[in-house]
């Protein structure tokens, strides 16, 4: 079953690469997304058996990440179909500069999307640290061509930065993995294998110094991929230049995947009694990320970049939550879900705005309610959600983390966290609410397309889910998240 989960998107990707028929490719993309989603859902009721001596297996955190990924991909996949149908296949005139460019062939685009899904699935299922590394590097490599969908110099620049920075970061994480191997081989009489489960089980015999070094290197390495400041520099470029549907996948799903790598290492650290050390590092990086994001958000002129910086901020929040430990981990996990759904929805809506207004500058977008009412509504809701406004789920998760911080007596962390959240809120609110109000420029009203069905339904569903999560969390899901907290010593 687990293998099927990886091979469905993989095979669909290969097929779509060789097929010459556009509608067949759309069909493959849709089917793979649906099948993947159904399989993932079925795992909630019928837990699959682990494979290859526990090398591949689905634990709680993996299941959470996998479900988010699969769900987002379902939405993004259908959105992509409508998006690709809209895209012209000949030369396109760029709206920012006076240049003509073409798109990456659709076959390659869809193939890479499916490969990305396969590699993210692979990552969520890997239990061996070596495999995790391989999978994270694979997600980088398969997503690079996606960022370069519009073949012009800006996206190329973004792709190059993304490739180079992330590859180097992940190479650093490889060094971290080797340190982990040293830590595992010097303690007891028999070396512990690099399976996550075994490392946690025999954590008390691991060499503490090397484990610390391993965590630092892995944190920096995967943190680069996750978009933690100060290693985040690729993120705004990549997210703003990629097609919106890809931005939503990168932001909503891929960042979580990198987080998974950190989470597993953190798990080993807490089991070895290094929870405080690792937690403080996570909190520090998290606060720096929030600070950097806040600084850049407050005067941001490009709404896609703004969303990208917001991803940096929210990854910081997740890291802080994990670092604080105990009850905050619950908030952190919940926030992972909330952020993924919200951010994916926002990026998809941003794609709709971009399609109508042909600009990424916030100042040039006005009167969305008059032009694209549904998207405008979703945009507003998404903005409120991303800034942690009740009654959305993000409010609950952010509040949980804050409360846990105060309960633990970490007043400085909590205070800084709160202040930064407020700053981001102000930045977002002033810029984005203005976009929806006012009257649109002449001409845009006439151009305004009828919103395609597929381009608003996925974000609408995601926003709805956040709302539901904000109003009420099902007890099974609550227990599920609690189980994850138990993995890192929370309660």
């Amino acid at each position: 079953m687990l293998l099927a989960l990886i091979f469905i998107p993989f095979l669909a990707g290969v097929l779509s690469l060789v097929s010459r028929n556009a509608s067949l490719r759309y069909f493959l993309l849709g089917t793979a997304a649906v099948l993947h989603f159904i399989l993932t859902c079925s795992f909630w009721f019928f837990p699959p058996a682990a494979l290859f001596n526990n090398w591949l297996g689905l634990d709680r955190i993996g299941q959470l990440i996998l479900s988010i990924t699969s769900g987002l991909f379902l939405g993004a996949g259908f959105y992509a179909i409508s998006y690709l149908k809209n895209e012209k296949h000949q030369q396109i005139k760029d709206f920012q500069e006076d240049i003509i460019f073409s798109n990456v062939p659709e076959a390659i685009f869809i193939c890479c999307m499916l490969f990305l899904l396969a590699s993210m699935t692979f990552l969520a299922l890997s239990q061996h640290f070596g495999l995790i590394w391989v999978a994270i590097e694979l997600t980088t490599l398969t997503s690079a061509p996606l960022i370069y969908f519009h073949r012009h110099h800006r996206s190329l620049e973004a792709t190059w930065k993304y490739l180079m920075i992330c590859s180097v970061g992940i190479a650093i994480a490889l060094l971290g993995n080797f340190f982990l191997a040293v830590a595992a081989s010097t303690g007891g009489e028999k070396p512990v294998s690099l399976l996550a489960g075994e490392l946690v089980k025999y954590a008390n015999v691991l060499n503490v110094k090397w484990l610390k070094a391993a965590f630092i290197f892995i944190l920096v390495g995967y943190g680069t991929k996750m978009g933690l400041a100060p290693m985040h520099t690729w993120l705004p470029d990549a997210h703003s230049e990629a097609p919106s549907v890809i931005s939503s996948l990168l932001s909503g799903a891929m960042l979580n995947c990198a987080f998974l790598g950190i989470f597993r290492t953190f798990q080993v650290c807490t089991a070895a009694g290094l929870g405080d050390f690792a937690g403080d590092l996570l909190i520090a990086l998290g606060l720096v990320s929030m600070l950097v994001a806040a600084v850049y958000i407050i005067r941001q002129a490009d709404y896609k970049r703004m969303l990208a910086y917001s991803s940096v901020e929210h990854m910081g929040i997740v890291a802080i939550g994990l670092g604080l430990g105990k009850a905050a981990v619950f908030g952190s996990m919940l926030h992972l879900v909330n952020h993924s759904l919200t951010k994916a929805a926002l990026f998809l809506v941003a794609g709709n705005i971009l399609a109508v207004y042909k600009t990424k500058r916030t100042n040039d977008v006005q009167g969305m309610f008059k032009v694209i009412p549904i998207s405008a509504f979703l945009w507003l809701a998404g903005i409120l959600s991303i800034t942690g406004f009740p009654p959305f789920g993000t409010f609950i998760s952010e509040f949980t983390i804050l409360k846990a911080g105060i309960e633990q007596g970490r007043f400085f962390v909590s205070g800084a966290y709160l202040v930064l959240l407020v700053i981001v809120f102000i930045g977002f609110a002033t810029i984005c609410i203005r976009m929806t109000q006012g009257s649109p420029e002449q001409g845009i009203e006439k151009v305004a397309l009828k919103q395609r069905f597929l381009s608003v339904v996925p974000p609408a569903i995601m926003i709805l889910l956040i709302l539901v999560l904000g109003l009420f969390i099902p007890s099974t899901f609550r227990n599920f998240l609690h189980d994850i907290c138990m993995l890192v010593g929370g309660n």
Partner: protein
Amino acid sequence: MLIEFMMIFLTLVNLIILSTSRLSTCIKVIAFQGIILGVLPVAGGQFDIQLVIFSIIAISVKAILFPSMLLRTLSQLNIHREKKPYVGYGMSLLIGLGAIVLSWWISKNLPLTITPANSAVLPVSIFTAFVGLYLIITRKMALTQVIGYLIFENGIYMFGVILPQKQPLLVELAVLLDAFVAVFVMGITIFHISREFDHIETDQLSTLRS
């Protein structure tokens, strides 16, 4: 003895790469490093059949495939030399010397309970990784940065060779495969960069800000 000489050669070629502007020399150095790294696991004298197979694969990927891919990209680009780097070649060499001293000092102070086959392997691996990172930071050509990435990866790989607990063969192969795909994708990107910009200088990729 063999390992000692391999380490000396690695140090020297690293220094060469720091002090040369010729891209083809850099690529040859990569090939040379690849051979040494491929032989390294079996150079200790133990002939495990798995190890031998792996080292053959590693040599063919690191010493043949990568350099030929890079050379192909180079020939498409019609570029032969690195453009003025941020730090001059003489200065780079000096910094390289400092890095050698530093990496020996670091490896002397690492609480590594394993004794590697040769005490030079650890410092040279640190030095190699340093050279890779240094190239990525100080050179402007996209191609040199890819070379730097490969050297960095080689340095880390060397560290992995010392470990008593071998990564399972499957993982090592997957790591190799990843590096291969990375270089492949980067090569394609460089090709696109050169077509789009008529150069491959990354310092001029600066449209996207804040």
